[in-house]
């Protein structure tokens, strides 16, 4: 995975994160931090129908994040897929490192795993809140 940690996809989403910001009247929110590097994310979700995120549909998502390129890029890609209805509630709970690697088009070293999982964890935390 030489020189491939920073694909154009990562850099593009890092420079221009999609759906960044706050959501008016979210139904679910959650924050996650990575104490090792100080990366932070807060996600806002609007979920329709279904309690506890179950059997519901994510109508909209926004997030505020600070951190490294990998964590921001993953947040942006996930948010974009959710907004485009390409990613459903049932799917986010089952996503793993390898799914995100596929989305990014690169392999991630174990040391950076927490960076790419931060936003996914925040989304799942919000959905189960």
């Amino acid at each position, binding site marked *: 995975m030489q020189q491939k*940690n920073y694909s154009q996809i990562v850099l593009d989403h890092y420079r221009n994160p999609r759906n960044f910001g706050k959501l008016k009247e979210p139904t679910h929110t959650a924050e996650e931090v990575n104490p090792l590097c*100080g990366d932070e994310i807060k996600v806002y979700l609007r979920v329709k129908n279904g309690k506890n995120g179950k059997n519901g549909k994510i109508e909209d998502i926004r997030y505020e994040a*600070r*951190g*490294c*390129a990998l964590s921001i890029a993953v947040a942006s890609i996930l948010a974009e897929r959710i907004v485009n209805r390409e990613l459903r509630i049932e799917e986010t709970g089952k996503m793993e490192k390898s799914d995100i690697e596929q989305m990014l088009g690169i392999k991630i070293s174990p040391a*950076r795993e927490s960076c790419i999982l931060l936003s996914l964890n925040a989304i799942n935390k919000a959905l189960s809140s």
Partner: protein
Amino acid sequence: MFNSNFPILKRKINGRRLVYLDNASTTQKPQNVILAMTDFYEHHNANIHRGIHTLSQEATQMYEGARDKVQKFINAKYREEIIFTSGATEAINLVVWTWGHENIKRGDEILLTEMEHHSNLVPWQILARKKGAKLKFIPLNETWNLKLETLNKLITRRTKMVALTHISNVLGTINPVEKIIKAAHKKGAMVLIDGAQAGGHISVDVQKLGADFYVLSGHKMYGPTGVGVLYGRKEILENMPPYQSGGHMIRSVDWQNSTWNDLPWKLEAGTANIADVIGLGAAIDFINKVGLRAVKNHELRIMNYVLRELGKISGIEIYGPESGKDRIGVISFNAAGVPPHDLASILDQRGIAIRTGHHCAMPLHRKLGVESTARASFAIYNTKSDIDALIKGIKYAIQLFCS
């Protein structure tokens, strides 16, 4: 210098020559350290002390020989002032939970600095909370040195302990510990110096410094992990209760009571980390062979070169003293537009090892106003071409992220 002594430097990382700039975390080990430990296990392995058989006597001699090497290395007056621990962290905890537990009372003050590593902060926090004592901190000035003018006000009659780092693991600042020790002693306070970043970089003379306690980390000075040193003045150590108890630290044991062994063994319970202590002894041999003066001059040259080259890149913020004279060993920085973790990944792809994060100094990073920094740190084997590789890598990362 001396690169051929370090087998690991022959390694390729991601197809590139290894450029190892994470020495403040742990240094690489010279061949003689690796051989000393292998030799012990292959030819002399036995438990030490009280053994009548040949191997045990050899092992004891080698282990206690390492103690003599440490004594000379930091110029301690007595060999029994050298206590082997599992590392600098345990050495500080030993002082906190023996001396501190006995001597710190409600209302007492413990004075630290704003640049302490968590290992010289958290143990004191726990002790202070338990005892109802107060922690105070010597602040930093705008050049990232300690504000010495605050000392007189900060050290009071209530100050029982002043504990500070000799060299900052983030800023590289060399603290004027001799001055601070004098000021503390004037008010009757004890002083502990955390020498984790000083050992193997600058010469340390505990008698000249007048330190009551001095702490070393073995693996940050070319030795193995799992071994550190607590130096303590003999009369203080003699009055301290044991830290851990069990085998080896006793003189005689009854069903109900026990009496303690002499120093240094009173404070070394259980079977010692024999091979690693012998490895530390070999590391000191290596440092002595190179010569601390040569080490310091080499690192000063490297530091000046880094400062100059990094300073040429726009958007680089350097944390720590501006002059190479006031700092040694480490340089923390951030490149505008490139998060430190991404910088580290990009450098790693080019075979360059640096560290990023808060470097176990979260309160200091809050003071710096950043969550994390990138840190390059140096040792005897680093060369100008290592620095050239680092600078080239940083420029590449900036171009990748900011174009």
